[in-house]
């Protein structure tokens, strides 16, 4: 009888361990995203203009350089910060200054933002300034989009392709 109860106890232990492992291996279900919403994801990497414009060195300046570093032009390394604005249905949802990356501030600025919106029709406006001016924008896009539930609308930016790209 004692042996039988021990076997029953072992069975119970293994069953409980299997139940625990099996349950938490896939349950409870996690709702990572509302099923009736859509996502607008803005992600890009873009280098703005340099803070100090490239200019031609004078002959005096060239002569002052060590012989192995003499060159006709010089450029500052650091880039200016960019200004980005995102508006959805007329409401400003993102307005930020994007600093350049890199220790010397000479890398491209990066943006990665997600906006959850109800599924349906939306008007998306994007503006980006990447020059030394303090006002205005170099790139502006406005588009009406019809978003299905759980749709991921990716927005990238490529200056050589005209600006913002909807994917």
């Amino acid at each position, binding site marked *: 009888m004692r042996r039988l109860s021990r076997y029953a106890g072992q069975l119970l232990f293994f069953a409980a361990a299997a139940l625990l492992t099996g349950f938490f291996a896939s349950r409870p279900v996690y709702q990572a995203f509302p099923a009736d919403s859509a996502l607008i994801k803005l992600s890009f990497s873009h280098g703005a203009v340099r803070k100090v414009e490239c200019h031609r060195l004078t002959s005096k300046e060239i002569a002052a350089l060590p012989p192995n570093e003499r060159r006709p032009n010089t450029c500052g390394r650091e880039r200016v910060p960019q200004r980005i604005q995102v508006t959805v249905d007329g409401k400003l949802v993102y307005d930020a200054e994007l600093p350049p990356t890199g220790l010397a501030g000479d890398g491209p600025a*990066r943006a990665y933002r997600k906006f959850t919106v109800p599924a349906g029709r939306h008007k998306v406006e994007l503006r980006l300034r990447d020059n030394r001016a303090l006002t205005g924008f170099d790139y502006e896009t406005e588009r009406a989009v019809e978003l299905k539930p759980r749709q991921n609308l990716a927005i990238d930016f490529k200056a050589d392709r005209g600006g913002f790209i909807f994917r």
Partner: protein
Amino acid sequence: MQVLRSVLRSGFDAAETVLARVFPAAWNPLLNLGALGFFFYWVITASGIYLYIFFDTGVHDAYTSIEYITHEQWYLAGVMRSFHRYASDALVIVMLLHLVREFARDRYRGVRWFSWISGIPVLILVYLAGISGYWLVWDELAQYVAIVSTEWLDHLRIFGESVANNFLAPDTLDSRFFTLMIFMHIAVPLIALGLLWLHLQRISKPRINPPRGLVVGVCLSLLALALVDPAVSHAPADLARVPAALHLDWFYLGLYPLFDHWPGAVTWGASLVLLVILVAVPWLPPLRRAAVARVDLDNCNGCARCFNDCPYTAITMVPRSDGTPFEQEAAVNPSLCVACGICVGACPTAMPFRRLSALVPGIDLPDRTAAELRAQTEAATLSGAGRVIVFACNEGVAAAQVADAQTAVVRLACIGQLPPAFIDYVLSRGLADGVVLTGCAENTCQARLGIRWTEQRLAGERDPHLRARVPRDRVETCWAGRQGLATLRREIAALRTRLEETGDAAA
């Protein structure tokens, strides 16, 4: 820290006691956590090798190949997939329990810091391997894992380009990243195995294989789970859609919702703080160490019994240095010795019968010498029928509570510190009518091998063994652990009854 350890230890003690009623001592799952971890590792490896035969490593075909594994060849590859999944989950469970149990039993400070610290990268690598495994299925869960992981990495801002950009839209998906994941999923467990080897370096005779009965039970449980609730995939990954309802594996991905919603600075900061705490724990506060074992060359003949019995590889045999005609002598490495005294119990010169010379064995604990043990044993002035001397391990039950006119208690660092000759000494000199040895619960010896060696010494299977002339019915062992006071009282009473029945009780 002390309070936390104490609470956790009480919990483990209680759970181990319950399981001890159900399982044979050697099978107790809580006493085989490390060995079970190794076993699950091999199950994962074997099932992973089989799955790899059918797995297509291309990002666009991976899902299809896993669907074939799961549904078309469900009877073998599907079962293997479930074994792979559930053994990985079980590995996390036993690994975390192992970590908490070693913390609760205070086996991570002092010289044991090495095992603790070397276990931390293993913990991280196991998680890395598991997470990269979920990635390979390339279903909606994999998509979620990929995006949250890369977004989390991007918070560091150490990569020139955003890593998460790889998963921005279907046309940005880069199969090279997928190949990197496959490489990680294979390489990381191999690195972990190397670190596990390192993890075991400072203990001798590690148990890396669980008992066969436990293996059978575990395998049957995995099989039952594989058949009742097989591992299946979500819908295929589609970067144009956002994963919504997910069957997260909470063992591996339980923190992902936090990574997804909390700011990167918070999650990285918390992870860093947790890592620093884990690394610093062996010194919070540092263990006040007892004086380590000391070799006395005048009494050491280089027999190597202490070397063979040391659970922590703290003793090495080195060439003789004192000119005596012995080949070797024992040398103690202070940075490895935990002062358990098992070496003293193994030393044939720790002989209490010695009278012509002082009782100085070849190896001894300065804080609890063999001479002190003998003096304390002799000081027991017992009276009445059924006099009993209890040799009790410091880590076991609070044995002082059983001391009375008929019962004396002599404490040791570990029960393995007791040379068997002491039992002979007590009984042949009439210091008591019976002897009880008590310590940690069976298979839970704080110094790993104290109980095992003691049992073998008493059974005459290990030197120095208990002499044949010692009547075994006057010796009792009680491996009841810290919560075993009632059991100890019961064993003493049973011994006393036996002594009275056999006429060995003095009165």
